[in-house]
């Protein structure tokens, strides 16, 4: 084509960096550039960051809950009576009381309990009662974290309380699963170990626990899925998780905000739906592989299926 009035190459698209400086005045923007500016505001990044909080909760709570579960299961099987009562009591009580009560009670109780202990240790003796008039009053040095601490410590502390609350509840369910799995290990295996001269502790460590996993895995996999679905309860504990931000960001925004918009909660909750379905699918795949690996050589249906498939 010749020049002058003919075809011209289209203007090059604006670079992203140009788009971001344009975000300084949202009222001048329309359409896609408004949307891109909206999706990159500081508040939206808090939303994206909260996904990491949820994943961090899962990654931290699962081992802690498993630990509590182990403790509970071994206690329930113990020959020492008080320990056995504690183990059985722990599983029954937590399984019998609605989870939400633990999620609301444990953080408050632990927080006040720890601050009370510090009060006894650090505060000058005073007559004022700690619990009075619906208030909880300890001197400023006893507070955890201190009021002068940076906000990140307050948030980390709140998160830690949430992890403990989740671990207490899911630990009880895990204890039940592990208790059943330990009982399912064939007695013949344990008897053979005893015949070899192993002490009870050695039998437990070398034979019972390694063999128990294949029986425990279906129950624990189920618990993991339930834990994933329970993470929105973080929102009840005042932690700013994905549900909190989805509600906050989706709600109608009037002109007082830089980026006004109508009720967009449907879209935000669809994103949450996608996230949870994705997590569930990935978990299913990984747990399936783990089950296959643990079933090799076992006297279970899964083991038998693998032998037949190999033959």
């Amino acid at each position, binding site marked *: 084509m010749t020049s002058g009035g003919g075809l011209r190459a289209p203007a090059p698209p604006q670079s992203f960096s140009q788009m971001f400086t344009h975000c300084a005045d949202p009222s001048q923007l329309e359409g896609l550039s408004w949307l891109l500016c909206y999706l990159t*505001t500081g508040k939206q990044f808090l939303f994206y960051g909260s996904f990491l909080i949820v994943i961090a909760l899962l990654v931290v709570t699962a081992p802690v809950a498993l630990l509590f579960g182990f403790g509970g299961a071994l206690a329930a099987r113990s020959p020492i009576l008080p320990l056995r009562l504690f183990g059985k009591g722990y599983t029954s009580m937590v399984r019998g009381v609605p989870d939400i009560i633990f999620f609301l009670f444990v953080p408050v109780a632990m927080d006040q309990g720890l601050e009370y202990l510090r009060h006894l240790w650090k505060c000058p003796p005073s007559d004022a009662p700690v619990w009075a008039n619906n208030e909880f009053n300890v001197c400023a040095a006893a507070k955890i974290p201190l009021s002068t601490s940076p906000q990140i410590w307050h948030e980390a502390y709140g998160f830690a309380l949430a992890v403990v609350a989740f671990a207490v509840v899911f630990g009880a369910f895990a204890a039940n699963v592990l208790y059943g799995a330990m009982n399912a290990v064939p007695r013949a295996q344990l008897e053979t170990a005893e015949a070899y001269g192993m002490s009870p502790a050695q039998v437990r460590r070398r034979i019972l626990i390694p063999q128990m996993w294949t029986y425990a895995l279906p129950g624990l996999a189920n618990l993991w899925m339930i834990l994933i679905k329970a993470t929105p309860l973080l929102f009840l504990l005042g932690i700013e998780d994905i549900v909190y931000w989805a509600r906050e960001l989706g709600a109608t925004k009037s002109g007082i905000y830089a980026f006004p918009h109508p009720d967009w909660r449907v879209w935000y909750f669809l994103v949450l739906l996608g996230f949870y379905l994705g997590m569930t699918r990935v978990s299913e795949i990984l747990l399936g592989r783990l089950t296959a690996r643990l079933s090799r050589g076992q006297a279970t249906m899964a083991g038998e299926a693998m032998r037949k498939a190999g033959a």
Partner: protein
Amino acid sequence: MKKLILTAAALALSAGLASAQTVRMGTEGAYPPYNFINDKGEVDGFERELGDTLCAKAELKCTWVTNEWDSIIPNLLSGNYDTIMAGMSITDERKEVIDFTEAYYPPAPSAYAALKPDADMKGIVAAQVGTIQADFVAKSGATLLEFPTLDDTVAAVKNGEADAVFADKDPLAAFVTAESGLQWVGEDVALGGGVGMGLRKSDAELKGKFDAVIAEMKADGSLNALITKWFGPDVKGF
């Protein structure tokens, strides 16, 4: 993560020096123009600016914390923060549980809004849970429908769950626009004794400090200037 803080340094308490305690100001963050979370993720609004000014005048270090409206008073009593500045009206019922400073915003009118001008104000009315408006609706003989945030109450009217919403006029005004379809219905109702800062009853010293600086701001007109800045010239100040 939570909102921006004013001070981030950790201090050690040393004998002899006045202990530099940080006052934690609690707010809701979902009630513009009193308090809201701006697009940078920080607490913003009339109460943020007023709170920062009061702290500066009283020579206190303050940080801001947000908390859901439902549990805002119990968490104050538990010690999670030290004050509440969340558009909370001074009422006798609340005075039984916490103390208030003097009002920093005069009693604001509350109003009904609905999709139709002839909506039944004695039918199903939506209000935010735990507010004086919810109380008023319950006593007026209408069927009360409560929601955790102001947004949810307006959404209920828009989707037909409720006939009307009854709320503070200023925050509700943001939703009563030509495009939303909502319109004012009936007369304004004056409720409550003005908006004040909530404190624990055992914190008399802190209350004294804030009362003093609020009175100072009323006397030199800076409080009225702030009210006009955020709420417009129509609001009668102090």
